[in-house]
């Protein structure tokens, strides 16, 4: 992808069933569709086996192109862009 274009930062909140390789699926789709991963957090609610993944990405592409693709993954329950997130480009945390 063209890295000279303006890169925008986004924060995604992804709710997913805690299933095999769901994290790999999300990461694979994110990379393939042209989004750079700047950081992430992931935790599982063991009561209902729902995982919440926060994904901080940047790209010159509209974020809807990524959310539509993540939403197609079978185990995903919801994806939303967190417009209230602070500037996340410095986030390097990875607790997954």
């Amino acid at each position, binding site marked *: 992808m063209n890295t000279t274009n303006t890169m925008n930062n986004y924060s995604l909140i992804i709710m997913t*069933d805690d299933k*095999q*390789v769901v994290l*790999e*699926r999300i990461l*694979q789709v994110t990379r*393939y569709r042209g989004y750079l991963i700047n950081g992430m957090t992931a935790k599982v609610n063991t009561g209902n086996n729902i995982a919440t993944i926060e994904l901080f990405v940047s790209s010159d592409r509209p974020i*809807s*192109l990524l959310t*539509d*693709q993540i*939403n*197609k*993954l*079978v*185990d*995903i*329950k919801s994806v939303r862009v967190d417009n209230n997130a602070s500037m996340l480009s410095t986030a390097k945390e990875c607790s997954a």
Partner: protein
Amino acid sequence: MTDNKPLTGGGLLFKVLEQHGVNHIFGYPGGAIMPIYDALYDSNIQHFLCRHEQGAAFSAVGYARASGKIGVCMATSGPGATNLITGLADALADSIPMVAITGQVPTAAMGSDAFQEIDIFGLSLACTKHSFQVSHVDELEKVLHQAFEIALEGRQGPVLVDIPKDIQMANVEQTFKIAAPLKNKVKLPLADISKALDLLKQAKQPILYVGGGVGMANAVDEVRIFANKTGLPSVSTLKGLGALEASDENYLGMLGMHGTKVANLAVHDCDLLIAVGARFDDRVTGKLDQFAPNAKVIHFDIDTSEINKRRIADAPILGDLKENLPLLTMSLEIKNWQAKIQQMKKDCAWRYDHPGTNIFAPAVLKAISDLMPKNTCVTTDVGQHQMWSAQHMSFDAPSNFLTSGSMGTMGFGLPAAIGAQISRPHDTVIAVSGDGSIMMNIQELATIKRYQIPVKVVLIDNEKLGMVRQWQDLFFDGRLSETDLADNPDFVMLAAAFNIKAKLITKKSEVTAAINEMLDHDGPYLLQVKIDAADNVWPLVPPNSANNEMMESA
């Protein structure tokens, strides 16, 4: 099932397949899938032994595309599984419902770099709609039901189920329950048709742009009725061919890189594009920002992610095409546009008056199309012969033209034809191939021989990788790099080695009689058609050009 023999994971697999109406599967055995092949011995499902796992995958794809049923293939672990990958990728790219079963090394050996161990589950992420690795025999039945459900639901696609050998061998009881859906069905908003109705009313020069989604949505009748009632001029993608009737006077043929001149010019000039089950693929649009530059867009699709992906839709309509398209039906005042299109169509008609005695491939394919029985299923490989088939043959339905559209996989045609013929034993099946493509899965002649599958192979032979050669001539200063195939085997002799009747023709005067002989022959047949190596596919939209800038000669 032998009496008193407990049900195993392998046996359960076939019981679930039968529950889903599977009659035929394509595969190749090996070490880590032996318990499944042992259970096959007791099953009523007919297995076709292909001679390469890629052949098995493509036969499953051809079976699915020709019949509308799900295709099933299976392979062992390691190389068996990796050999399925190209078929899975092809099925994903063209949205074909398929279930692939792979054997895996025993659970205890997984992760130890065991013999024939590969992480096919990991490899499957990029080339399947979804995949499973079974971790306990008690979850096998549920996973298999889910695999079928996912393959067929919404935008269809391939699903892989990887089953370790110990789970294939473990005893299990069948519950006969269809598992609950993995996730709630995507709730699509009710179609907002009002904006689309306004756009259509206002349009002076609208075009109907039909894609592969029409056949997948089982909406051929609805699209034909809509085209007929509105009188819209219409164009088709490669995968949409057969959805519209070729005899419809408003139908202009295929658009895009090798589309008809009239289709590309009409789309370029239109003021409204009604895309139905089409996705603005790069081979369709040419230079994207110059594709239908003055058109508003109404976009019907089942897949949310296709809306606004490559072209912003002024009126997106998500959901079932079968239900939604009829809502747009109205009579249109577009007589001037229709008249202009008719004149363009007349001016751009194909010509078959090729000089000399050499065989002209477009004329051969047109002749086959005219002579073949109704409801013949044609498969192709990839290259010049594929584009000539798309341009010069006519098809009754999308399920009668099977070609690797998105992935463009050489080696697709012969095994896909085998699958198609098995799914439709009473219809004629013709595989149009090239001398490059046929060699990619030539081993499947052995499958044809073994089961006496009466596929007719038309081999368009220019002793070249013709499409690459064409591009080297046109865009790489004629530097012909690795595209000469003059040392190909003797194809007639090769066919004879597999007990397949074959004939070579080299002159125009032989064409009609040879086609009739092939079509009249009861069993498999290979017709090798020598053509001039310099023949090109025209028109051609050069790379990074608008569709109205097509080349019509070198």
